């Protein structure tokens, strides 16, 4: 299955991308995507746990099982206001 992974803020700076298509095994969880990002980007080495996570524009846990077509975003510490 495929999901769309969106990058914002520091994660866009680190990856140099706004959005990528990711192929995952069926039943993959949101937290696993974070771990695979950590293997790709050394700047994430010190961030063992994922930041907050959004699936389809709603906050979700690292345990959330993803489905084909989902929109996933890791939410670094927010600083609005």
């Amino acid at each position, binding site marked *: 299955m495929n999901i769309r992974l*969106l990058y*914002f*803020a*520091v994660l*866009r*700076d680190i990856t140099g991308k706004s959005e990528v298509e990711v192929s995952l095994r069926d039943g993959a969880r949101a937290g696993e995507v974070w771990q695979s990002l950590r293997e790709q980007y050394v700047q994430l080495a*010190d*961030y*063992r*746990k994922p*930041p907050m996570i*959004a699936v389809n*524009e*709603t*906050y979700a846990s690292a345990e959330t099982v993803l489905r084909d077509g989902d929109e996933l*975003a890791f*939410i*670094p*510490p*927010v*600083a*609005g*206001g």
Partner: protein
Amino acid sequence: MSYLTDSTIDSADLARRTMRPSDGACIVFEGVVRDHHEGKAVQSIFYDAYRPMAEKEISKIIDDVRSQLSDVAIGVIHRLGHLRVGDASIVIVCTSPHRAEAYEASRLLIDRIKETVPIWKKERGPGGEEWVGWQGAKC
């Protein structure tokens, strides 16, 4: 209606649009880019957002606050992009017949917006650029 903008926020206009004839109090909160943060000089800020989600989260927060404080009318605009010292990044207008509810709503809104809305800021100062909160999030 959108809660996000890429240009200067017109807080007087937001207040006018929020206010009803039965309102006796109007509280306008403006969050403004200041010239320092945690001891470091700040020259400018770049605000980024997960726009559709930020719109939804702000809308949810407004609905929640309105369900607690039903007499209050609420207007919120958050600015994104490059801001300089003195620019308003957010304007929150709360109006109500009596002032206590408007003050309470105003504080609830800014506290909750800062907590959960997916908006980020990168501060630029003489020492370089930094995404606020990222260094402290190591785990």
